[in-house]
């Protein structure tokens, strides 16, 4: 199973609604639960950390209507 598959699926379902009021902000999910939406990635990370603890993964993503792929021209992955 791909990493964060459940979280991404949950967020994709919520995105149209979230994007109406929170475009450019950061969503945090712990499992399939939305922890919250935060103006900065720093606030989002810390909220995720407090919700999940240091050992369990949580998911953080910037809310955009159309997520663009990231171009990395100078590196061979």
């Amino acid at each position, binding site marked *: 199973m791909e990493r964060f598959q459940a979280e991404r699926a949950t967020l994709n379902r919520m995105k149209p609604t979230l994007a109406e009021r929170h475009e450019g902000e950061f969503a945090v999910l712990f499992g399939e639960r939305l922890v919250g939406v935060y103006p900065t990635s720093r606030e989002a990370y810390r909220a995720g950390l407090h919700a999940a603890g240091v050992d369990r993964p949580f998911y953080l993503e910037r809310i955009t209507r159309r997520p663009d792929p*990231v171009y990395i*021209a100078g590196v061979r992955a």
Partner: protein
Amino acid sequence: MRQRVQLHIDSLYGPLVPVALRPEPERAEMLRNMGRDVPTQVQGWGLIDTGARQTCIDERMAHRLYQQVGVAQTYTPSTQDSEPHEAPVYYGLMAFPGTPLPQIEQTMLGMALGYTVQGGTVVALLGRDWLAGLRMIYDGPTGQLDIYV
């Protein structure tokens, strides 16, 4: 008035900046409070890469120091058939020891870096998200890099 950081450019290796990858402070504090080991920082080079939209870090270092918080669709020169592939997204802190450059705390992409140049390891690509807050002059003939903070 902006502060100037002067660095030497090696024409073979490009604009290198000293970097230190450090665990995110709040997570480090939580680990300490639990009596657990906090990963020690890793020092190396950051290569300024105007072709990279987002700052990247060496995947092996990231796995040791940082927490993965997502995945991103990426295109690189090695991407086949114009299809993006997924790269892990980490959250962590990067400092620039010996310079007045402000440390950053943000998401970064994990990539296969970790090659050795000039007595150090390239552990980061500093992308346009990092450059967005700075002014940089790359003077090839004199081999000088000026960054204005």
